């Protein structure tokens, strides 16, 4: 018989503290779909995705019923489309639309992989592909896009950084009726990972096998609740409590991932043990930091508290899963975290502090609404700064900012659902264009030479 307190603890975590499996993501290789023409390739992509993932929603619902734990999202990631369309880049939007149809057919909310990897150089076909992103995001609903523009091993491709500033602006412009929502589906990475189950940055790397199940767990509410029980503990004990909690959360993810892989005829890939917030009360990473003793996220001490949280989550999670991967850490998407939204509204959380925070947690400047008038070169410069943090610290960083057309500081924007809402955050008004327009490549750092 189980210890009854353990049983009741699990139930409390699920029912009161929002413990859930955030996503089951099936990674599908599209490499076997390449045909002699764009149309045939698009058809093969649609057929393959629909066939491989046809049971993903049913299986997720079944598992959720059997284990009594909510599985919030069912998603698919695919091989970067720029690779599939290298021979006919003009057909990339057709493949993107085929993916959107497939997502509708499967009943999944997002499908990631309209992506390109240009961290060292950008071929003509890749540039053409990247230029197709704004239109694709404006004309499809569920396809997500990402571009990797730098890595610790290769440096930062500043030509791609410059281009991505323009692409982000154009995407916002083309989706201006929805306040630039297209940008919520577009991530610019440095050190992108090949097995990330979380959107919008998921794609299926070429080093992966044919069909893989990656699972993202969550549970900021569970961690906060555990800390509420030890309000006067020192930080050794707080870190220990976070570790233990992360262990339990990740074990639930590992169980679901293995079972889902078996039932979906796929390989078990990784568990991503991220603390992913939602705009719902009680599901906030910011509130964990405040529980640790900060008056408000964004204040002095925030970076230290976040560093400890991120590290403790990893330490607890690593032992709980046979394969940990993806982004694994604490996410800080501003519009998706009620505590972050409140701090930003009060003017206590700024983009500079967020940038510092991204040096010690997973991912980067995420879901931040900025003035629509922000120049493309400034967005490129924001991307370059984040990429530099990722490159030097050997970690993934990303930028997902939304320059909301027609809105400025003082306004706010509502994306709805999991994407949440955000006040427009000011950016530094000075001009960085001469730096960005230089182009070229920032060389890889000295510590990348490890061979």
């Amino acid at each position, binding site marked *: 018989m189980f210890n*009854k307190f353990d049983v009741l603890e699990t139930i409390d975590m699920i029912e009161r503290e929002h413990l859930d499996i955030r996503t089951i993501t099936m990674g599908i290789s599209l490499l076997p779909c390449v045909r002699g023409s764009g149309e045939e390739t698009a058809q093969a992509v649609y057929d393959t995705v629909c066939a491989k993932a046809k049971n993903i929603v049913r299986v997720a619902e*079944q598992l959720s019923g059997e284990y009594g734990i909510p599985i919030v999202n069912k998603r698919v990631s695919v091989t970067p489309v720029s690779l599939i369309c290298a021979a006919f880049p003009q057909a990339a939007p057709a493949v993107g639309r085929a993916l959107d149809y497939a997502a509708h057919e499967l009943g999944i909310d997002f499908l990631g992989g309209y992506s390109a990897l240009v961290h060292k150089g950008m071929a003509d076909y890749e540039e053409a592909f990247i230029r197709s992103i704004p239109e694709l995001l404006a004309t499809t609903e569920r396809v997500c896009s990402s571009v990797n523009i730098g890595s610790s091993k290769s440096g930062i491709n500043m030509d791609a950084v410059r281009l991505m500033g323009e692409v982000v602006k154009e995407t916002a412009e083309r989706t201006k009726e929805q306040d630039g929502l297209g940008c919520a589906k577009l991530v610019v990475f440095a050190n992108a990972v090949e097995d990330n189950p979380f959107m919008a940055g998921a794609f299926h790397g070429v080093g992966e096998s044919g069909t893989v199940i990656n699972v993202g767990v969550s549970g900021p509410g569970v961690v906060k609740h555990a800390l509420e029980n030890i309000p006067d503990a020192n930080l050794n004990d707080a870190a220990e409590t976070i570790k233990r909690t992360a262990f339990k959360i990740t074990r639930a993810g590992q169980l679901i991932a293995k079972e889902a892989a078996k039932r979906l005829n796929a390989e078990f890939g990784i568990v991503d043990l991220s603390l992913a917030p939602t705009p719902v009360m009680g599901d906030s990473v910011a509130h964990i930091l405040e529980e640790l003793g900060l008056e408000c996220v964004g204040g002095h001490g925030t970076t230290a508290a976040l560093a400890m949280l991120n590290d403790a989550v990893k330490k607890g999670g690593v032992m709980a899963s046979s394969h940990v991967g993806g982004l694994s850490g604490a996410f800080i998407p501003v519009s998706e975290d009620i505590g972050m939204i409140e701090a930003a509204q009060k003017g206590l959380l700024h983009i500079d502090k967020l940038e510092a925070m991204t040096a010690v947690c997973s991912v980067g400047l995420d879901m931040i609404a900025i003035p629509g008038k922000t120049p493309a070169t400034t967005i490129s410069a924001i991307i370059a700064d984040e990429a530099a943090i990722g490159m030097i610290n050997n970690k993934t960083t990303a930028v997902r900012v939304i320059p909301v057309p027609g809105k400025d500081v003082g306004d706010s924007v509502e994306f709805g659902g999991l994407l949440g809402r955000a006040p427009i955050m000011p950016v530094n008004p000075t001009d960085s264009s001469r730096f960005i327009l230089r182009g070229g490549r920032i060389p890889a750092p000295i510590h990348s030479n490890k061979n």
Partner: protein
Amino acid sequence: MRAVVTVTGKDKKGIIAKVSSFLAERGVNVEDISQTILQDYFAMIMLVDIADLNVELSELAKECDDLGREIGMSIRVQHEAIFNAMHNI
């Protein structure tokens, strides 16, 4: 194969009888029961054998949820693996 049934809510008469006969009709055998009452708050945990279950486990979970609503309690059925995973190394 085993599952854990938990029943929580305000204490009232006949809960165990109702839940166990409901489970028996579906081929579920109760192996162990533990219950606690804390100031009117009733929490019962049953370890049950589901080898002869005559419906799908997720279906049983749904039916128990409905029964819970009917009698004003919260009833959950979960495969034991989730508790093993989270609380045993």
